[in-house]
């Protein structure tokens, strides 16, 4: 089997890991995460500005468009540390939108948007619909062309950070072909965005009503590269969310360990009981496997064939490991685990959200099986 990835790091990746580790830890203490749950925007604009100033949105954008000219491999340590510290911002969606533009944008579109993203403009993707299918090519929203205008219809769901994004990239079917339209949020009619109640209270998500909305055909990505955009976005999303989940798994295991080391029952520190100790070790082992897969996926990202296998392995392992570690964290915290005050639920909910966005572990495995065995 020659489509299995390898593992390696780059100097830039490690530098970014060090910076991101400190930045996310310092700027996103859990009290702040919890305070932002009740905030409309859902993130701290000052921190978002800093993320832009640090150049983190420019990492995987070519220098010609004002970017740093690295790759998604260098985005991974940042997403990992953000997930570890439950730091919510439009970082992920903006990064993915840039990838979509790179995969399918015309010269003019790339020149118009990528420099702005590089400087810190938020963007997002509107890909999901009411059918709930993880297959991003399954699109029922449509666009009808007349002259050089395209009239859109249908509803997009789970559009993360849509109220902050200046650019929203929407998938629609035009004459049976999968197309992507660039919509400026400022052009949305009143009421086009409805805030959704989502399982992850640290993120913000919106339903986007396309009915009545028109865009110029100049705002459509390259007609021949629709498939490439889907593949690139799916892979990049798998990588970014695997990174977030891996960081989250590390955090929830550490959070559980803190409790197991301090809580006493029957005169003993509960971490000395093997009934708690052994499953915690099992969860830790699964986490380390997830992290290994994550850095393999980052390393293999650009390689034809290997990239997809490595990313799906990372996504499957991260989702399973994060879910299980958070699930056991709730249980091992006993009565406290059942309360909203216990951080375990933040992680458990985030793992569910991540699975909902990119496809859960069994889904990733079903895609992998085809790549490995058929």
């Amino acid at each position, binding site marked *: 089997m020659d489509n299995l990835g390898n593992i390696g790091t780059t100097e830039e990746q490690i530098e970014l890991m060090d910076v991101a580790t400190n930045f996310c830890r310092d700027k996103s203490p859990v009290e702040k995460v919890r305070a932002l749950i009740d905030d409309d925007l859902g993130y701290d604009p000052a921190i978002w500005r800093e993320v832009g100033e640090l150049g983190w949105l420019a990492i995987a954008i070519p220098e010609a468009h004002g970017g740093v000219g690295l790759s998604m491999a260098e985005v991974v340590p940042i997403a990992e540390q953000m997930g570890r510290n439950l730091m919510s911002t439009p970082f992920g969606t903006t990064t993915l939108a840039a990838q979509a533009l790179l995969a399918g944008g015309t010269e003019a579109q790339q020149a118009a948007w990528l420099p702005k993203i590089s400087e810190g403009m938020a963007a997002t993707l509107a890909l999901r619909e009411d059918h709930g299918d993880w297959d991003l090519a399954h699109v029922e929203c449509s666009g009808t062309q007349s002259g050089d205008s395209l009239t859109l219809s249908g509803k997009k769901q789970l559009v993360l950070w849509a109220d902050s994004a200046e650019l929203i990239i929407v998938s629609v079917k035009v004459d049976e072909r999968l197309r992507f339209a660039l919509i400026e949020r400022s052009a949305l009619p009143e009421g086009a965005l409805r805030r959704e109640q989502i399982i992850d209270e640290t993120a913000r998500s919106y339903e986007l009503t396309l009915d009545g909305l028109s865009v110029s055909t100049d705002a459509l990505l390259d007609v021949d590269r629709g498939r490439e955009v889907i593949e690139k976005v799916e892979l990049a999303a798998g990588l970014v969310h695997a990174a977030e989940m891996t960081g989250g798994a590390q955090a929830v295991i550490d959070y559980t360990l803190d409790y197991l080391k301090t809580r006493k029952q029957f005169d003993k520190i509960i971490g000395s009981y*093997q009934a708690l100790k052994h499953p*915690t*070790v099992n969860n830790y082992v699964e986490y*380390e*496997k997830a*992290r290994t897969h994550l850095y*393999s996926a980052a390393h293999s990202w650009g390689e034809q064939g290997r990239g997809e296998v490595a990313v799906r392995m990372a996504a499957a392992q991260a989702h399973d490991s994060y879910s299980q570690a958070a699930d056991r964290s709730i249980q091992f915290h006993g009565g406290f685990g059942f309360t909203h005050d216990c951080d375990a639920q933040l992680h458990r909910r985030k793992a569910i959200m991540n699975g909902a966005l990119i496809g859960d572990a069994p889904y990733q*495995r079903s895609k992998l*099986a085809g790549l490995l*065995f058929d």
Partner: protein
Amino acid sequence: MAEKPDAAELKDYSQAADAWFKENTVRDPGFMLPLTFMEVSTDEQFDFLREWQRKVYEAGYLGAAWPKEYGGGGLHTDFQRAATRAMKKYDAPIMLNAIGNGWAGPLILDLGSEEQKQKYIKGMLNAEDIWCQGFSEPEHGSDLGNAQLKAVKDGDGYVLNGSKIWTSLGDRAKYMILLARTDFEAENKYKGLSFFLNPMKIDGISTSRIKKLTGEYGFVQTFFTDARISADCLFGGEGNGWSMAMKTLEYERGAKVKPVGGYFVKELDVMQIVELAKNSTRNGKPLLDDPVMRDKMTQYMIDIQALNLNNTRRRMPQLMQDKPMGLPLMNKLARTELIRELTEFSLGFQGTKAGYYVGDENAVDDGYWHRSYLNSFSATIGGGTSEIQRNIVAEHALGLPKTR
């Protein structure tokens, strides 16, 4: 200290090693070859593997990085790595003298006297002197620190009484690394232990073979009845047995003493399992069309790939900062449990044929899978059970309190 290798020299050596293993590797000598040093059952297996190790050593592909003055090759570690890669490439048989080369040798090279190095190292490299390990006792399997075999100082020697168990190659070994109790009044159980380089072929030491769950042999129980050894067999000083025993475990990571090279245990080739699955059918369709089997097989591929890459990641300090002991300590647990699960899983591919065993012409792959599954327990139990491993990871990597 060997120089940083010259690239051209290393390349020549690698090519020579490649050619040598290509030419000399025998994979099917006409009888089943053991996959691990713990499974050597018959004389023909033992003789074959001993001869193979001698040949590899004499060709310069084992102990290449060990000091020249004691029988090693005196080369940089990268040379031995290249030789080991060639061994793996041609699926060469295992190195037999695992306890000697993997445990006793590094300990002696690290802490032994000049005389001990001269006496022991070369003989373990060329497999002339087979070594075994005497740590476990019948009543103290996992609780090694509680070993009770008695070593009583008597004049210029020690008199040994007691028993050791699960001694791989015990009936064929010339030496045993032995953990024995020299002080029954020490302040704790660990401080009463001492470590010996113990000769096996002496009066008062006898072995009896243990039949394994597979029906084969490979382990013995060793009995010590007033066996008398000389005082210079003591290694590391009285009362330091526990720390010596623990040290033998550290050398595996190759940090202190350069690895001897080769392998004592054959990695299970996962592709064989995938092949077996691909060639199996269920309800008239390919087995891997069955969604349950397909999902499980994929999960195992994810697991295997993770453990294989973990070995690379372990050498990348930049990805090991958070819990540096985590990966090294979990490796045994994760790997041995996975192999047990995988081999058990493979039995399910075989349908009715899962009923056959080694020796029947109808057995799939001569019963290889059944034998591998049953033998897999030697690794999940031996060398510290998986349950003990979880305690070790919990206490030493995660910082959880001891179980008492």
